[in-house]
């Protein structure tokens, strides 16, 4: 896809082996992260995250819906990612479909937790309005505006920022409807409920190039990868989701080592992201 010459390839690989990458970073250093919140007024919450040449937007929309009969005490959340053709010509038409599905599935796995809700970043039972009848449906949409590698981490950060920016209108249930009737709702446009996003995990992708792993790989570095492991880790240091990309096999001991490295990296990333998000929120309020 992005054609590197043999010399360039060796330069990228050699740099990683010597812990000095093409842009001067170390193997486990992220590019500077810029967070902007409230970029889409139409949405209930939104954020834009930039990391070097990677630029993504996440928006959260809330709509009134009906809980599924299987889980009457839980709201619904869905995550979709769209890769805009403005980011790269290969995303035109159906070209982006494969990447979009891969990213959506990975984000759902990393952020929504298990079937029973364990490890979920969003507490689904907080989205319920009237049990079994009315709940909030959250639609989280990610958009890749420009791509320079490490899309998953950037999207994960953008979604975390967008969720902390999200206000869900307070709903007053007018009169308790009896039986099968849908209750009458009064949706407030002044009072908003905020999400607790401290439990939302961050996603750390370790890309394996040669014998070493790097974080926050650029597109050039990603083209040299043999495999990559995306781990989502919450503040407590527990792993909430994991996906592997790239065909090459990994030794099980390497997998465990990568998980522990990712855990270590996530601690710094969580702190940095939280301070960036609160700074962005402060700017928006001014």
């Amino acid at each position, binding site marked *: 896809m992005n054609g590197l010459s043999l010399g360039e390839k060796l330069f990228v690989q050699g740099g990683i082996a010597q812990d000095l990458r093409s842009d001067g970073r170390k193997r486990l250093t992220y590019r500077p992260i810029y967070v902007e919140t409230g970029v889409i007024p139409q949405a209930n919450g939104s954020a834009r995250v930039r990391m070097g040449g990677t630029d993504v937007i996440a928006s959260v929309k809330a709509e009134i819906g009906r809980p599924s009969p299987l889980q009457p005490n839980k709201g619904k959340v869905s995550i979709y990612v769209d890769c805009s053709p403005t980011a790269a010509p290969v995303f035109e038409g159906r070209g982006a479909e494969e990447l979009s599905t891969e990213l959506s599935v990975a984000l759902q796995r990393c952020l929504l937790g*298990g079937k029973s809700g*364990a490890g979920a970043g969003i507490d689904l039972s907080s989205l319920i309005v009237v049990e079994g009848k009315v709940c909030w449906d959250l639609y989280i949409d990610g958009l890749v505006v420009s791509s320079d590698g490490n899309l998953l981490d950037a999207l994960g950060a953008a979604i975390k920022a967008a969720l902390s920016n999200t206000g869900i209108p307070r709903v007053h249930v007018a009169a308790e409807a009896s039986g099968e009737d849908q209750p009458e709702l009064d949706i407030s446009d002044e009072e908003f409920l905020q999400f607790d996003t401290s439990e939302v995990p961050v996603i750390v992708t370790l890309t394996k190039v040669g014998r070493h792993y790097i974080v926050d790989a650029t597109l050039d570095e990603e083209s040299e990868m043999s495999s990559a492991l995306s781990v989502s880790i919450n503040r407590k*240091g*527990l*792993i*909430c989701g994991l996906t*592997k990309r790239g065909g090459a096999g990994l030794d*099980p001991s390497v*997998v*465990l080592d990568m998980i522990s490295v990712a855990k270590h990296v996530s601690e710094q990333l969580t702190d940095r992201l939280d301070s960036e998000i609160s700074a962005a929120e402060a700017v928006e309020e001014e």
Partner: protein
Amino acid sequence: MAGGASATAPSTYSPSPNQKKKPPLFKDGDLDWVRPDGREFHQCRPAFFRTGAVNAAAGSAYAEFGNTKVIVSVFGPRESKKAMMYSDMGRLNCNVSYTTFATAVRGQVLDQKESSSMLHKALEGAIRLETFPKTTVDVFALVLESGGSDLPVVISCASLALADAGIMLYDLVTAVSVSCLGPNLVIDPISEEESYQDGSLMITCMPSRYEVTQLTITGEWSSARINEAMQLCLDACSKLGKVMRSCLKEAASASEES
């Protein structure tokens, strides 16, 4: 070659019990908790494999793990579609579909796109794509009955079908999943267990090379628990590999005799 001397093919692939015997763990203090099908927590369902299920295909395999029944056929290598660009590597095309009667609710929408991409990712690392340039191998999997752990069964069965088709592989790919139910790790879960699970971990690996080709985790896990679950899966994977190998050998010796 492991298990070459044994005359009878093993039919199950449960991992060996842990060296140190742990006290039995029970869900939420419920001492009578047993698995719905009466298995032990670390006991797998009996695995049944047959190759050559479809005549028209270059290679095919049928797998039955309890109520999970899967058929996979492999076509090719055949010429890639005209629209595809030239490639000196072969292409792998995977598709997983469910019959409308596979699930309890008819035509229940399952994410087939996701399964297809998972199957692709699990297999691509094991296939020697450079041995069939310019061409495509199609792997079509059909889940006849969904009884839990569908994807691992599909993946194992697909690698057997690829071997049956004579596609060059580094190794067979075997897949095993565990579910996390409260404090317990339950291997090879059935649908009922999957619907209550707190988390799940699936490993696909190449047992002889001892390499993980794909790994997915959902739910909340500590590192120690991941380690435990991985060991459990890897042990089961290597045993499953032996079951699959003996199935291939049986098919080969049967065709020699006739």
